């Protein structure tokens, strides 16, 4: 079954996160990495959630694998929610799109695609490689 288009709620960026959403609009997925302990994390923060060190933005290859997922059937347009473990390290919440929902599987390789939210700004989602 293919996805019907869902109204994607626009993210409300703030000064701490603006660079992430600007990158998404430009078709790039970023994570934050700690300058002190070297660990990447998600969602991005100014101070590392592991050690409170200062952090910097880091490019990713936009790929990862599905850690878990669920297809929401009780919705106007069914959609697939997932946790995607990025090759860059952290796991993030996202949607799996442009695919047959019945064929989504844990462990499946996925790559980022950017879909417009209801105010036009892009949101990173994933589709099977």
């Amino acid at each position, binding site marked *: 079954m293919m996805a019907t288009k869902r109204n994607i709620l626009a993210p409300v960026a*703030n000064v701490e996160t603006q660079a992430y959403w600007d990158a998404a609009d430009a078709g790039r997925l970023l994570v934050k990495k700690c300058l002190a302990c070297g660990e990447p994390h998600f969602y991005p923060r100014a101070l*590392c959630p592991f050690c409170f060190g200062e952090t910097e933005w880091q490019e990713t290859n936009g790929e990862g694998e599905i850690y878990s997922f669920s297809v*929401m059937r009780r919705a106007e347009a069914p959609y697939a929610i997932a946790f995607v473990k990025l090759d860059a390290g952290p796991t993030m919440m996202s949607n799996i799109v442009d695919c047959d929902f019945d064929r989504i599987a844990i462990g499946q390789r996925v790559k980022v695609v950017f879909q417009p939210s209801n105010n036009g700004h892009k949101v990173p989602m994933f589709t099977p490689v």
Partner: protein
Amino acid sequence: MSIKRAACIAGIYEHPTRHAPDKSLAQLHAEVAKGALEDAGLSKDDVDGYFCAGDAPGMGPISMVDYLGLKPRHVDSTDVGGSSYLLHVSHAAQAIAAGKCDVALITLAGKPRSEGMATGTAPRIVAPSVPDAQFEQPYAPTIANMYAMVAMRHMHDWGTTSEQLAWIKVAASHHARHNPHALLRNVVTVEEVVNSPLVASPLHRLDCCVITDGGGAIIVTRPEIARSLKKPVVNILGAGESPKHTDGGRIDLSYTGIESAGRRAWAEAGVKPADMKYASFYDSFTITVLKQIEDLGFCEKGQGGKFVADGNLISGVGKLPFNTDGGGLCSNHPANRGGLTKVLEAVRQLRGEAHPRCR
């Protein structure tokens, strides 16, 4: 300092309503407060500690203290969702042990049923200042599909089946048939659960709890006072708490917060899973129960599916009767928060007040 035997549960009340369009939210809080005080044999003037969470209207405890006409010397509005009231029992015991209050009142009430709330299936709007909001809201997380991802991962890791999860609902339904106030009183079968419509894969409609109006209240007091009252004394032996989160993106659905919270509670109480003849488990969904059973050590990790199957949670049939009032899965889930009613049924069991077919 331990809370072991520092305080007792002296009064409980569960509002009999499951649909209350004719009552205000504050009114429900007052009715359950009155009910629990009557159950304890105490009066409103005895209350010197008040506890409530996010279901209570107003700022923290302030509006409710005003509305109820209480004059507490200790208040606490810790809100961690449905389990808030378990923390309240623990915090009340701590406050009593520290001499901060003698008679603590905990109330819960809500009207999601009469308000037509799509509790588990509609994404909840979160203030943009909540730091995770912008990284989650676009993806439409709901209560149902978040728990569903836990279930999906458990099935992947351990081969757990929908039929095994269904046994949890089946057990709850066997208990609910004896509860005249339960919303769902019909016994259901494994087939009926797995053939009910998918809500969020792999969870079906009958894997979900009910949506009900109503509420409940608990009176916690010091042992000397509890012993002077008419009801059997119910001692608090231990408690633990542990907010689990996404850990900076190191998301791991293989365990829940109750793993460490439970370890602390078992240690403080000095008891172990094998000592338990009854258990109240939070039951927003069937998978919720299974995860707690594993993480509290009632079985090996991954073996929860086998543990709950074949009626093992049914009173008089299996080894571990749970939620003998029908729980949130069949009886009541007031305010979409299941913690308080779990305490109530555990107290009924300890007092010998649970339904004779479920003791």
